């Protein structure tokens, strides 16, 4: 059985964690994602930029009162990529289980 290639953009711990969070939550603020993933602000910012550049998530910068607020939302392209990643992952796990 041929392995489905795993999307390299999603096959990284932090980016996968961000995408998994955004799959569960429709829209999340930057501090919430930081808290849940336990990542540093700098690293998280870089990974969010990569996901945003790929069109997997949409980043919206607004204000909450006087404080800046960064909102991240998964796009339909991101949802499809995540589904494809999980499907590909299943293939790897099935092969391993058979072994």
């Amino acid at each position: 059985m041929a392995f489905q290639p795993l999307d390299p953009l999603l096959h990284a711990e932090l980016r996968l964690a961000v995408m998994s969070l955004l799959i569960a939550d429709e829209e999340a603020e930057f501090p919430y994602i930081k808290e849940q993933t336990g990542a540093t602000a700098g690293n998280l910012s870089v990974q969010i930029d990569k996901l945003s550049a790929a069109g997997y998530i949409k980043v919206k910068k607004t204000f909450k009162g006087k404080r800046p607020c960064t909102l991240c939302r998964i796009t339909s392209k991101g949802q499809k990529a995540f589904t494809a990643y999980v499907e590909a992952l299943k293939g790897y796990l099935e092969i391993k289980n058979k072994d």
Partner: protein
Amino acid sequence: MEENMELTAERSLEIITEQIEKSRQAVSKDTGQWLFVSGLTTMLMSVIVASVNLLTRMPIAHLLWFAFPLIIWLVMKYINRNRVPVPESLVGTLVKKTWYTILTFALVYSVVAVVWNRYMVVYESPDVYLCAGMHITPTVVTLLAVAVSITGLILKKSSLVWFGLLSFMILRCGFFSLILGRLLSPTEFGKLSLIRPCDYIFLFALVGLMLPGWMLKKQK
């Protein structure tokens, strides 16, 4: 979390499961905070209403209950002012919509019941009132207990389901009145009518809201 291209399939699956579970836990804790604060505020409010009723010797303070949704909203807004908000999720939305629906039912029922009972008292005989009067506290307590149990089912917290059921049983099956009846003399028991149903509401807030809320809040 660092970037790691040597991710195994198992680790990937673990990350996905972990994050989805974390999202559920965040909703769970947020709901816990909400239940805990609502419970505490309800207990405090029932003490205030009972005290005012005792002092004025009239059940006028019960009207304060209509300001209750606003009080809870203000308290929650104050407590959450510096907290990172929990994002919208399917689980969170389900919990929120369940409570909105139940609270709307409770509020509409209470308003209609107050008007209806007032009409009964003025225009009908006591016998008719006894038969056709609308009972606010038992109905509202039943609705809220159901909401607590449904929340438990959505969040997969069986303790919450049991707390809902327990609070409903304690108040609706007359256990509480039975215990009070045994502990107090008939005269003392009769005097309770001035503070009724604040004692029931206090107990419900403790068992049905505050305790399960505290448990959800404290979970790891």
